C-alpha cells in the first residue's frame, strides 16, 4: 500500500513536523526530506526524488504555492495540510487536495492515497 512511499514534508512548525513524520512512519512511508522555509522547500522540490509531498501553506509568513508549482511541473502529486480552508488557495491551485489541520492519522493516510491515485 503506502509502504515505501517517499514523502517530502514541508512544515515550518517543528512539533507538527515531528508528528507528521511519526504518522508517516507509522503508515510505512519514508520521509525523504523536511523543509521549514520556502527557499529550502523550493530547492528540495526541484531536486529530491519523491512520490508525494505534504505542504504546509504558511511557511513563516510566506506561502508555499511556488513549491506546489514546481511539483506540478515535475508531475509529483502533493497535498496541502493547512488550517485555512480550500478557499484560501489561489485560483490555479484551487483543485488541489487539502488536508485540514488538525488531522487524524487515518485522514492523512486517506489523503495520501487519494493524491497518489491509489
Amino acid at each position, binding site marked *: 500500500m503506502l509502504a515505501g512511499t517517499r514523502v517530502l514534508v514541508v512544515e515550518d512548525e517543528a512539533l507538527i513536523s515531528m508528528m507528521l513524520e511519526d504518522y508517516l512512519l507509522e503508515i510505512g512511508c519514508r520521509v525523504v526530506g523536511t523543509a521549514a522555509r520556502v527557499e529550502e522547500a523550493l530547492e528540495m522540490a526541484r531536486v529530491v526524488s519523491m512520490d508525494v509531498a505534504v505542504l504546509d501553506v504558511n511557511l513563516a509568513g510566506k506561502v508555499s504555492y511556488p513549491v506546489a508549482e514546481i511539483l506540478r511541473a515535475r508531475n509529483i502529486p502533493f497535498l496541502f495540510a493547512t488550517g485555512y480552508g480550500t478557499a484560501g488557495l489561489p485560483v490555479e491551485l484551487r483543485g488541489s487536495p487539502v488536508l485540514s489541520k488538525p488531522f487524524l492519522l487515518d*485522514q492523512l493516510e486517506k489523503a495520501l492515497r487519494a493524491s497518489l491515485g491509489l
Partner: protein
Amino acid sequence: MIAGEVHTAELAGALLSTLKDAETGQRGFLLTGDLSYLAPYESALARLDRDYARLESAPLLTRERQSLIDRIRVLASFKLEELGNTIALYKAGQSAAALALVRTNQGKQTMDAIRTAIDAFQRTVAVRLANISNRGRNFIGWGVVVGVGVLAAVLLVLVALSQNRARRQIAVSLYRLERFTRAFGLTQGMMRDLDGRISFWSAGAARLYGYRPDEALGRISHDLLQTGFPQPLAEIQAALLRDGQWQGDLAHVREDGSRLYVASHWALHRGDAGEADVIIESNNDITGLKHAESDLRESELKLRLALGASGQGVWQWDVSGNGTEMAWDSRGKALFGFDDDAVVNYECWTDTFPIEERAPAWEAMQRALDPAIADDDYSFEHQVLRRDGGVIWVAATGRALFESDMSVPAGRQVKRILGTVRDVSKRKRAELESQHASGLLRTIVETVPALIYAKDIKGRIQVANAPVLQLIGKPLDKVVGFSDDEFQDDSEQAEAVMRNDRRIMEQGQTETLEETVNGPDGLARTWISTKAPMRGADGDVVGLVGISMEITEQKRAQDRLRLMVNELNHRVKNSLSTVQAITSQTLRAIDPELRRSLDSRLLALAAAHDVLTRENWERGTLRAVVSEALLPFDGWDAARFWISGPPVSLRPTAVLAMAMGLQELATNALKYGALSDAAGRVEIRWETTAGDDPSLCLVWTERNGQLVSKPDRRGFGTRLIERMLAQDLCGVTRIDFGDPRGVVCRIEAPLAEVIATAGTLSFPRVGGL
C-alpha cells in the same frame, strides 16, 4: 245723421276761416298801408253773422256745443275789437301805435284761444261719431253699418262733399279725418262701454287679434280676449274712474288661440254732463318683449343655479359713478364673512385681503377697468382673512363692461365690472401641500449622502442629484441623456452596472446589489444600490429609479474582519495542531487508544471552529455542525447517516457544544454501538417547536448495531455529552442505553438560548472594561 255731424264740423271750420280772413286783411293793410288789403277783412265781417247762424242752426246743438259757440263769440268780439282799433289807429296816421298794439301779442293770444275753442267744438263731433256707431247696434232701423264701416262712410261722405263744397272745407275735413284715423284706426284700439261691451273695433285691433269688427262688436272685451289682469278688474276700474286713465300689461288670447301680451292704455271719456261714458282702450303688442323678459329671467335663474352649484358668488361694481360701493350677492358676501345685509364697498372688501395682496389686487382691477387695454379680465387669487377669524382662499374673476365713446382716445368708457368669486381653499391647500411635499423631496434628494437617479429604458440618465454629478465629475447637462458607458471611464464597470439595470428592467423586480464604480480619483469604490423598475401609466417598465450609497469603507472593514477571523481561526487550528502534536508525541508509546480519542476530540473542536469561521464567528448552521462532526466517521455516507431537520442557525457556544457532543456520540457508536457494525446506522433528526417556549429538539438514534450494554461507569464521553450540552445549551440531555435496538440520545434546548440572532456576537465585559 253722420253727414249732419260732419257738416257741423265743417261749419265750425268755416267760422275759423272767416276770423282768419279778417286777421289776414288787417295784417296786409298794416304792413302796406294799401286799403285794397282790407277787402278780406270787410268780407269776413260781412260773413260772420251768417257763420254763427249756420253753426247754431246745425242739428244736435248740445249744451256743450252751445257753450263753446258762446265762448268763440266772446273771443271773436275781442279779436274784432283789436283788429278794428289797429286799423282805426293806422288810418288816423298813428301807424306806429297801431303796430305797437299788434306787437303786444294780445291779438295772437286771442286767436290761439279761438282756435282751441273751435278744436274743442270739432272734437265733440268725433265723440259723437263714435257714439253713433255704438248706438247703431241698438237702432238697427238706421240701417247704418257700424264699426269700421263708420269710418268708411265718413270717408265716402267726405269725398262726396269735397266734390261739391269749397276747397277750404275739404281741407278742414281732411285734417279732422287724419286726427280721427290716427286716434282710432290704425292703432290697435277699441272703444267699449263701462260694462266692457265693445262699441268700436279698429282695423289695427282686427289685425292684432284676428277678430273681424262684426265678430268683436257687442262682445264683452274681456271675455272675447280672455284677458289676464295684473290686478283685480275692480281695482283697475276704480283707478280708471278716479284718474281718468289706467295703464298696465294684459294677457290676451287671439282668435287663433295664441296668447299675446299687450301694454294697455285705457282712457275714460266723460259725456257732456261729466258722466263716465266710454272707455277708449289701445293695446300694443309686447309679447316679444315679454318672452325676452321671461327668457332673461330663465337664463338668470339658470345662471344663478349654476353659480349656486359651483358655490360662486357674484359681484358688480358700477365704476361710472363716483361711489366705491359694490353689489354682492349673499353667497359672495358669505365667502368674505359679511352679513347678508352689509353694505360692501371696495375698501371694506379689500380690507379682508392680507395687506400685501391689496396693491396687486388694485393693479389687477385697474388693468381690467382700463378702456385702453383689451381683453384683460380681472383675475385674482388671494387669501381672505374673515372677520370670524377663518382664513380661506378665493379666486375672483371679473369682466369690465364698456360703452363706446368716440370722444376719448380709447373709443370707449368703462361702465361697470361684473364678476364671480369662489372658494378655492381646498385646491390651494392641496397645491401648497404638494409644493411643500415636492420641496421636501427636493431637499431630501439634494441633501441625502447618496446617489439618487432615474434612467430611461436605454439606461440614459434622466434625473441625477448632486452626489451623482460629483461622482461622475460632470455638470448636469453632460450627464442627463447619457448612459453609464458614455460617462464612466471604466468600461467594464459601466457594462456591469448596465447589465444590472437591464436585468432589473427586464424582470421588473426591485433589487439591492453591490456595484463597483471608480471615484473621480480613479480608485474603486463600492456601492450598495437599490434599484426599482419605473413604470409608465400603462404599467410598462419605462426605466428605473435607484439610490446608491457608498460602502467602500464598510466593505473594507468587513474584508479586514473576515481576514482577521480567518487568520485567527488558522492560528487557533495551528495551536490545536500543535497541541495534538504534543499529546501525540507524549502519548505515542503509552496508549494509542487514548491518543486517538484525544485526537478526535481536538479534531471536533477544530471542525467546529471551521464552521464558525465561515460565518465570521457569528453563527453556524446545525446541518454544517452535524456534517463536520461526522466527517471523520464517514459522515458523507448516506446509508450510514440519516440526517434531517429544518435550517437552524446556532450561536457560537451552541455550535461548539453540539460539535463536541456529536463527536462523543459518534465515537461511542464507533466503539460500542451502531457504527461498530457495517450494518448499523445512525439517524440524526431535529425539529423546532413553536409555542410560548419554542425549543430545539435533536434526537440521535442508533439502529441495527451491536446490542449496547449500559456502561458501568459514566465515562468522560457520557459526562461530556450530558454536562456540556445541558449546560451550554441551557437544555436537557438524556442518553438512553437501555433500548435494545440501539442508543437513543435526546437533546432539548430552549430555542432562545441556542439560535443566533442579530447581535449575537457579543463580547462579555470582563473586569469592568
